């Protein structure tokens, strides 16, 4: 990998003008919870669709004293997480950590850490498709109008048709939620397990979509409710009777792994840092 700590590149890669624009757009996003703020997304040395939105937020927000944690699928050691962490280290030279509690900024793909986040922490999501209505309506011109008019009946209808056809809502991840009773937003492809953590959290949640050029936010202590019918309440993934094979937790989101040696399905925490912490605590 190229070493980028180099006179030719600015601190944290982006030029200061770009960072200022992104920060301004972020402030707007915080002011209007769940509203997608368009921004002029910059090209980065990692591919569009690979976390450039989250990365631009991270690069615009970090200062020399920040401590960064990057996870993908809940794991600090996932290739893409390593690659992104490396890029920030190389261009900003800041400290990184795997400890959720130590980080000031956490960039994530597909998970919210199990350990509750605090007031002085920011969770930055990488968002592939920021528009929750896109699955129903491909045209941006129309979806923007639907948001403006708070016309979400088409989304409700798709959930209704789901129930009629399958008996359950089949949306597994990226479950559509309403922020502050107003804007429908996509929580990014996190599992439903993590949705309740969005509601009235202590930390700030920021969402960046690089390819689609949108920033949105859920500020601390904001109402976040998943769409659900009165008689079909929202359900998180069920791990009833399962526990992590490493730390023994039965209150975390688990990955299902097929163990070749035993020919059995085993389960393991998706949040690797949390799993290690539990293992230490339980002295396994």
């Amino acid at each position, binding site marked *: *990998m190229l070493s980028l700590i180099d006179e*030719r*590149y*600015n601190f944290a890669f*982006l*030029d200061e*003008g*770009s960072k200022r624009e992104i920060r301004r757009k972020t402030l707007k996003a915080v002011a209007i919870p769940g509203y997608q703020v*368009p*921004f*002029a*997304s*910059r*090209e*980065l*040395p990692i*591919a*569009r*669709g*690979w976390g*450039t939105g989250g990365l631009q937020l991270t690069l615009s927000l970090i200062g020399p004293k920040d401590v960064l944690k990057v996870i*993908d*699928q*809940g*794991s600090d*050691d*996932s*290739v*893409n997480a*390593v690659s992104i962490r*490396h890029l920030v280290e190389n261009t900003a030279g800041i400290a990184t950590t795997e400890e959720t509690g130590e980080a000031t900024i956490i960039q994530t*793909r*597909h*998970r919210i850490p199990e350990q509750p986040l605090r007031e002085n922490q920011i969770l930055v999501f990488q968002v*592939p498709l920021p528009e929750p209505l896109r699955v129903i309506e491909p*045209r*941006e*011109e129309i979806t*923007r109008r639907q948001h403006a008019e708070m016309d979400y009946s088409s989304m409700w209808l798709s959930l209704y048709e789901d129930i*009629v056809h*399958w*008996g*359950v809502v*089949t*949306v*597994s*991840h990226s479950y559509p939620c309403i922020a502050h009773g107003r804007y429908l937003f996509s929580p990014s*492809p996190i*599992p*439903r*397990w993590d949705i309740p953590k969005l509601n009235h959290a202590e930390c700030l949640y920021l969402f960046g979509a690089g*390819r689609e*050029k949108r920033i949105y936010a859920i500020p601390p202590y904001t109402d976040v409710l998943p769409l659900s019918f009165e008689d079909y309440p929202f359900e998180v*993934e069920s791990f009833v009777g399962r526990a992590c094979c490493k730390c023994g937790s039965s209150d975390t*989101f*688990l*990955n*299902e*792994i097929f163990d070749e040696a035993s020919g059995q399905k085993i389960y393991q925490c*998706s949040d690797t840092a949390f799993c290690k912490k539990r293992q230490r605590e339980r002295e396994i």
Partner: protein
Amino acid sequence: MGYVTVTGGKEAIVSANRLIRFYRLKDAAVPLDVKEIQSQMRLMIDRVMGEGGLYAPEYAAIALKQAEGDIAEAAFLLRAYRSTLPRSHYSLTVEPAQMRLIRRISSAFKDIPGGQMLGPTYDYTHRLIDFALTNENEDDIAAFIKDFRQEMDDAEQMPTFSKVIDVLRSEDLMDGMPESHAEATPFDVTMESLSFPAPRSARLQLLARGETGAMVALAYSSMRGYGAVHPTIGELRVGFVSVYIPYPFSDQAEGMPIYIGEILLTEVEIINSFAENKTADKARFSMGYGLCFGHNEPKAIAMAILESSLETQGTAPVQDQEFVLMHIDSVEANGFVSHLKLPHYVTFQSSLDRIRQTRNQPGKEEIDVIADRREV
């Protein structure tokens, strides 16, 4: 435990990077000379610069070398580099009418003022593999170039000609640009976020940076019947234009613009059927415009077709701004398609939960029964 074993953090990435280098060089007798790539892979360089949105032939050559000839990857390298550069100036509008031409044709007229000028084109070569190229040696090359230069010196070199379209304009047969298109300051797609409907300047910029293959495919669909545009090429010209920036040291326009160099461009002006132009008060042809970096004729023609197609109303894919403009960018399309290689096991776990849950659910008949009971 697929990804978990691959991860292993930094080591895996470092070794992947070393492997790329190994595969690039393992059978190399001599390293590729960047200068040679730049000079001999002319059309590839031009595509990379166009899709990367940066006119930098040398960097395009380095990028191509680094990407083992993958044009999308090379264009991406240029784009990423580009975003680290501050935007210091906007150039003055270049003037393709003053182009020093290397090629210029019109299919609308047999003879055009100044004459057709075929220039370097593969259009009429027979597509037979030239096996002699295997043994092309330096002496052959030197001899050919020497002879050719002598002939060229005798002929008039790189002329400038007026535009073919201007002939039609003088007869009032061409539609002018609609008022609504006259934007005081063009939109900058690299600095501002786009919203739809997009202004014309934004549409043209996105098309100029678009991926050649994607644009050709879309333009082709329009010509085959999924759209309204099947044009005649009024003029296609390839040549060099001078680039100037405004005198930078004063707000007043007291200083002369400053010449900063010359770039190669391909420009296409197509003439559309006047019957498609229903807004005009009398029958006039409307024009479609294509302009891109380097020598890239398919892209410039496709751009002109798509540009005029987006001016028409209808249900064809190429009449939908969002459909065309959101999907022709090489870096975005390649990025998102390839992101599927990233791990998705958490979301897939979530989907597994839903499919299992679905299996355990009552069918809709049962829901109806429940509903009927409620009714009573």
